[in-house]
């Protein structure tokens, strides 16, 4: 059987050789595929949960230091176990779904949105071997899946039946839709330069030089657009605490709030993975350090930069966000595309 993902196929062949003594051919194939998938899913969930945990702790710590505070200190060394305490607190609270909420949709939307980003994670390679779904159109698949997020985001806010959530969802949709176009233009330039939509070949193409050096305008535009797509400050109009009272999360209670936090951290993981793979050479790096560690190092630096930006900037006004997107980033993205074409393709 042909499986395109090297990571799954390794486990497939391991389980296959072990089970071939006991099972018939069809059952054997099914069992081996399921075993490979389960191993991949466990590895992926360890990565997502581990990243979310460290990100949540580090963000509280870094933002606190930027304010001249201590941040969490009491639970565990440097307050590292604070998030476990918060996790237990959130799970022990009551889950309330308001009467005005759309009954089957509202409780479903947050898990679906989270699942969407887990599926996106399966498309993104973490090393040349560790890929869930290894297709030659990985880049396209990821950005097609990303473009579902405005719809789901809107449904989360709108189905809750709260006016603040609804306003927040509308803002979210406007920002996500208008920033998608410059993002696609930059991604198009990357794909054009590498001559492929496959993440592996984009990374391999960068062994001679990172795309960061080839299109400096591109990475600036992509990073700003990414902050808007992740709805991190200064583009966090979705959960503007002072006007919308946390916006889309007004009616979201205990376990769903946990999912919403996990969702935001997973989005940051997806975003920083995309930047490091598309522009910073992915898992490529000098030999003694393993490729996965190189990639995580780049992701860590990017996420710390995202946190520093959160501590630095103030929330932008809605019209200025849109003006920045349409009047500055869009022409810059087009210029990036043209310059890349002129210098490297023609």
């Amino acid at each position, binding site marked *: 059987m042909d499986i395109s993902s090297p990571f799954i196929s390794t486990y497939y062949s391991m389980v296959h050789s072990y089970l071939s003594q006991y099972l018939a051919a069809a059952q054997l194939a099914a069992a081996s595929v399921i075993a490979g998938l389960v191993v991949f899913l466990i590895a992926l969930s360890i990565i997502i949960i581990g990243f979310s945990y460290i990100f949540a702790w580090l963000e509280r710590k870094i933002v*606190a*230091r*930027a304010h*001249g*505070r*201590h941040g969490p200190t009491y639970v565990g060394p440097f307050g590292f176990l604070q998030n476990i305490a918060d996790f237990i607190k959130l799970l022990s609270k009551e889950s309330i779904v308001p009467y005005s909420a759309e009954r089957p949709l509202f409780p479903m939307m947050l898990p679906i949105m989270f699942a969407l980003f887990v599926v996106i994670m399966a498309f993104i390679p973490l090393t040349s071997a560790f890929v869930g779904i290894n297709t030659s159109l990985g880049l396209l698949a990821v950005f097609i899946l990303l473009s579902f997020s405005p719809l789901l985001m809107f449904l989360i806010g709108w189905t809750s039946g709260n006016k603040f959530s609804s306003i927040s969802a509308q803002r979210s949709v406007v920002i996500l839709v208008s920033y998608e176009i410059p993002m696609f233009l930059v991604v198009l330039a990357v794909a054009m330069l590498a001559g492929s939509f496959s993440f592996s070949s984009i990374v391999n193409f960068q062994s001679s030089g990172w795309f960061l050096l080839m299109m400096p305008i591109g990475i600036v535009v992509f990073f700003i657009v990414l902050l808007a797509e992740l709805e991190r400050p200064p583009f966090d109009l979705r959960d503007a605490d002072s006007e919308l009272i946390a916006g889309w999360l007004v009616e979201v209670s205990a376990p769903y709030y946990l999912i919403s936090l996990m969702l935001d951290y997973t989005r940051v993981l997806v975003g920083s993975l995309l930047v490091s793979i598309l522009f910073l050479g992915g898992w490529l790096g000098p030999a003694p350090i393993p490729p996965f560690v190189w990639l995580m190092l780049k992701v860590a630096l990017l996420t710390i930069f995202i946190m520093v*930006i959160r*501590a*630095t*900037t103030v929330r932008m006004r809605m019209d200025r966000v849109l003006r920045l997107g349409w009047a500055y980033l869009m022409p810059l993205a087009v210029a990036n595309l043209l310059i890349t074409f002129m210098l490297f393709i023609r």
Partner: protein
Amino acid sequence: MAANPAKPIIEVLKQIVSKPYTMEYPENRESLTDNYRGIEKLDMKTCISCSACARICPNNTITMVDVDTDKGTKVMPEINIERCLFCGLCEEVCPPKCLVLTKSYDYEKYDRREFVKRPEELD
């Protein structure tokens, strides 16, 4: 747009690597000046029950109450710390210097009534 967009980020990075301004309260204390005036302390053995502190107190913070000692019942100052403005007049006027202001500033209580300190609690 700011003249140098990188400047605020550099300032925040400097702030992140520098020490925090706040202190973790119960373990670490501020270094106080010599003339800091905090919660009162009473030496019940040397108090002569003259009521000078109660008369000089501008806020009527101090009331003289009966206290049973081994030499019989005496009147001694009971202080409502909530009302005290820490002017230090009681300390100044006290003839045997038995009522002094310490450097303690642990005012937190669960109940307002706990701010009224009996002489035994001030000792």
